[in-house]
């Protein structure tokens, strides 16, 4: 210790050690969240194929492992060992960068989500805004990939996706303003706590209009059916990532599925009460309060993800002008009216 005292005072050393421990804890949390998220993506694809298969009266993957349970690993291995093809006319630096931007934006969002009352990587006071910002940044990845591929399909896909995500981000943001007014905070954990103490237990009941607008906008925001025009197979091959193969394609895929996970988590936190369950349910069935919060969180998230798949198996794709019409002419006015009513109720009560 004697040597250190000349360089650093004991108090400073103490705080340095504390800082080191904090950093270590955050690193461990990041590893846990990333590991779980990657595993989630692997099995989300399996879950999706199974659900859609059974809805179409098929079986889905059955070959690799019992009931195809190892299919995600087979797919992953295949993607890793595939040739990384690059169009000769492509804008190389941008082409390399765009999947990384897309995936990094999606993964960064994971760190602001409160999974339970005390497990989150960053408890930021503007968490909700940060999630919006990150999903907005993801658009850059999409647009840059479409531009740099130097292919008409990728380009049109990128344009469509950019226009769509930007338009629906407005509707989604406006639909969440009602939640912000009711909770009086942008901090995601505070929003959950506000729901726990509210009359209905979840915001989905008083904010039913905002909830519906959010669900529609969330499906459009992640470019999923029926709003999957950016990757409309019959017109655009695969949309903005047409020219990507192998590992880079996997990055886009990962980003898309993590985007779905984030939208599902956002819906869970803002409308379905996050890791809590409404007080009237625990009143009727008191033993449910012993179930850990992460279980409720995951049940709600996977129910929403199941809803994504369910919609995909049911509804055909919208036409592009219908898509824009729904976004600008219906969802945004409805969301604005919802804000007005919520604000009035908040003032008058």
């Amino acid at each position, binding site marked *: 210790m004697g040597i250190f005292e000349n360089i650093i005072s004991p108090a400073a050393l103490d705080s340095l050690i504390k800082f080191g421990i904090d950093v270590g804890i955050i690193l461990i949390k990041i590893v846990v969240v990333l590991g779980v998220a990657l595993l989630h993506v692997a099995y989300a694809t399996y879950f999706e194929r199974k*659900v859609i*298969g*059974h*809805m*179409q*009266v*098929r*079986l889905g993957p*059955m070959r690799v492992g019992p009931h195809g349970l190892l299919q995600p690993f087979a797919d992953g291995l295949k993607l890793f060992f595939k040739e990384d093809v690059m169009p000769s006319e492509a804008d190389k630096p941008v082409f390399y960068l765009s999947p990384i931007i897309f995936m990094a934006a999606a993964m960064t969002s994971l760190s602001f989500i409160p999974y339970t009352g005390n497990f989150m990587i960053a408890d930021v006071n503007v968490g909700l805004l940060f999630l919006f910002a990150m999903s907005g940044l993801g658009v850059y990845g999409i647009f840059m990939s479409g531009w740099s591929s130097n292919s008409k399909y990728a380009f049109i896909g990128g344009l469509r996706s950019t226009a769509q995500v930007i338009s629906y981000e407005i509707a989604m943001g406006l639909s969440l303003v009602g939640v912000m007014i009711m909770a009086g905070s942008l901090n995601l954990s505070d929003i959950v706590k506000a729901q726990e103490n509210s009359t209905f237990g979840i915001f989905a009941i008083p904010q039913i209009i905002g909830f519906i607008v959010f669900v529609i906008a969330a499906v459009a925001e992640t470019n999923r059916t029926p709003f999957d025009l950016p990757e409309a197979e019959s017109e655009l091959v695969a949309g903005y990532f047409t020219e990507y193969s192998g590992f880079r394609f996997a990055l886009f895929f990962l980003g898309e599925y993590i985007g779905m996970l984030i939208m599902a988590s956002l819906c869970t936190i803002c409308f379905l009460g996050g890791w809590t369950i409404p007080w009237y349910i625990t009143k009727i069935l008191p033993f449910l309060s012993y179930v850990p919060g992460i279980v409720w969180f995951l049940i709600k998230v996977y129910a929403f993800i199941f809803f994504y798949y*369910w*919609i995909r*198996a*049911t*509804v055909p794709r919208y036409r592009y002008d219908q898509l824009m019409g729904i976004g600008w002419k219906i969802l945004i006015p409805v969301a604005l009216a919802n804000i007005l009513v919520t604000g009035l109720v908040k003032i008058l009560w």
Partner: protein
Amino acid sequence: MNFKQAVREIIKRVTFIEILKGMALTLSRMFSRAVTIQYPKERRKIAPGFRGLHALARHPITREPKCVGCGLCATICPSQCIKITRANGKVEGYEIEVLRCIYCGFCVEACPYGAIAMTENYEYSDYSRQALLMTKDKLLANWDKYMAGEKGKEYFKKFWRPMSEDMGTPVNQAKGRGNAS
């Protein structure tokens, strides 16, 4: 459009009733049994009289093909995939291009001697055209493989009325004329 219809239309739009109906359907289908099967592991039952790969019938006693080379099958074949060559009054070559065959079964129907049959084999994909050109030897081997014994004997009676039974002189009118089979 009167007022009532307009109200109904608005309710329909606002409640997404049609989408909800569709979603109820897909959800109910999710819990029904899948209609697909795991093909190489499970196979569908082949219906009796299935028209698969061809075979040339072998006479049970002489072990020679029953085919006399009359050419009726080649004539009736809509895709003209049967080629017969004869030498010294015997059938020398009998070739079927199965890639061109449409499996109508006219050749079996046309044959007065019950010399060509269709087996229940439908899994004979291969890499070359040559491998799928069925020569006389291959067709005879098919018979031995799929139609040997009782099966081959019953086949024509069960699924094809041989023309000899319809067109031949009734047995009680002309004694001594044998049954073609």
